[in-house]
């Protein structure tokens, strides 16, 4: 192995400024590289993953204690309680999406990397969903048992969360990107994002209630799928633009 810097610098010189030489950078590598790095970071700080799940469980558990442990009553509010708690758990976890990267300077490295910023944002949002939305979706049926959700509702609850939580992560990334440059975000992000979450909530709970009442849910699910697709295309672009604005400040 070479020990002095000179031979490698000479090698470097050869592909300086020559893009045509096949050394073109690949956005796919950048995407997987960022995905791996963020997953590794989550793995090193596992307590961050547990927090939204713990919040979700506690919030759902408090309803039977606070309102009524009556099975018939709980069955009626189950879909709404589960969905609202999942939504709030996602919202709370979004604060940290870009904050660390902003503080340590790796966000500006992402912005000046020769890749579309939307692709990089998508990698970060995917990690966020994998460690927040997906576990919430998997945990929800267990909490649904506690809430006496009628069994017709289980598959629909699971499906709506599977379609809805990625939408929440994607839309939330816009708010996180807009507020990342501020010293104290406080409730600003919640105010910005919550109105956009309401359609997801309405169709999510609507679908579960319909399923429990024996009605068709395909329409609800189709609309949730459409919302996910729209968010998938638009949200990374919007969040990327928002990040550039935040870095400018």
């Amino acid at each position, binding site marked *: 192995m070479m020990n002095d810097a000179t031979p490698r610098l000479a090698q*470097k010189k050869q592909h300086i400024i020559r893009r045509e030489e096949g050394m073109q950078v690949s956005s796919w590598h950048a995407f997987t*590289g960022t995905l791996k*790095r963020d997953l590794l970071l989550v793995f090193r700080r596992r307590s961050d993953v547990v927090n939204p799940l713990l919040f979700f469980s506690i919030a759902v558990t408090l309803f039977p204690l606070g309102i009524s442990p009556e099975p018939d009553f709980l069955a009626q509010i189950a879909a709404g309680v589960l969905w609202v708690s999942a939504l709030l758990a996602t919202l709370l976890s979004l604060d940290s999406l870009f904050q660390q990267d902003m503080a340590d300077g790796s966000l500006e490295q992402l912005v000046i990397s*020769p890749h579309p910023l939307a692709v990089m944002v998508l990698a970060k949002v995917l990690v966020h969903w994998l460690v927040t939305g997906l576990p919430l979706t998997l945990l929800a049926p267990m909490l649904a048992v506690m809430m006496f959700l009628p069994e017709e509702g289980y598959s629909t609850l699971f499906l709506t969360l599977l379609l809805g939580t990625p939408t929440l992560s994607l839309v939330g990334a816009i708010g996180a990107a807009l507020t990342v440059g501020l010293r104290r975000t406080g409730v600003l992000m919640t105010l910005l994002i919550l109105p956009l979450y309401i359609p997801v909530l309405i169709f999510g709970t609507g679908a579960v209630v319909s399923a429990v009442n024996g009605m068709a849910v395909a329409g609800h699910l189709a609309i949730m799928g459409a919302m996910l697709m729209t968010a998938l295309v638009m949200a990374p672009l919007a969040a990327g633009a928002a990040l*550039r604005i935040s870095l400018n400040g």
Partner: protein
Amino acid sequence: MQELLSGQNLACERDDRLLFSKLDFKLHCGEVLQIAGPNGSGKTSLLRILAGLLPDFDGTLFFQGKPVQSDSDHFRENLLFIGHQPGIKLNLTPEENLRWYQSLYHPADTDQIYQALAQVKLTGFEDVPCYTLSAGQHRRVALARLFLHAAPLWILDEPFTAIDQGGVKEIEQLIADHAQQGGSVILTTHHNLSLPVELNVIQLGQSHQSETEQA
């Protein structure tokens, strides 16, 4: 010498304060350019403008004679920027940090990363979490990218912060080598540079009429 980066009539205003205006400069291949000036004179702002992080300015930037906006991906492929923050994840090891950086440009194998870390005197620290390292070592991890990434244009914001005297000499040598190989370096520092190559200086903050002078 081929022209690498140039700016025409640059002006920047931050918070209603004019940092600089009518700033022209030309940077050719093989040149080192130091941005000098007292604290708060806009050195970092200028570097961020040049790196494309601060779109809020007047004037035009040209990379290889063409406006930067016309092919900004090409510009960014050829740029290595190390900012005020070293951009190091404390929960990752130096190797993992560099692996991520290289995934953004040209993926590097473990051997290359270990060699680069050896160049910045971090042998033996490759796989310890960065939170156990000192501030100077964090900067060394960031500077190891200079050995991995074959970009012709380096923009370095205070690269000597927290680096010991021996390290400063090595980085100066690295900058000089890069210039002699045909690369260009733009940097800010409060340290007195002793380089074997010609050093151009942009002095900020004396008056609004900033001039380029040969040092």
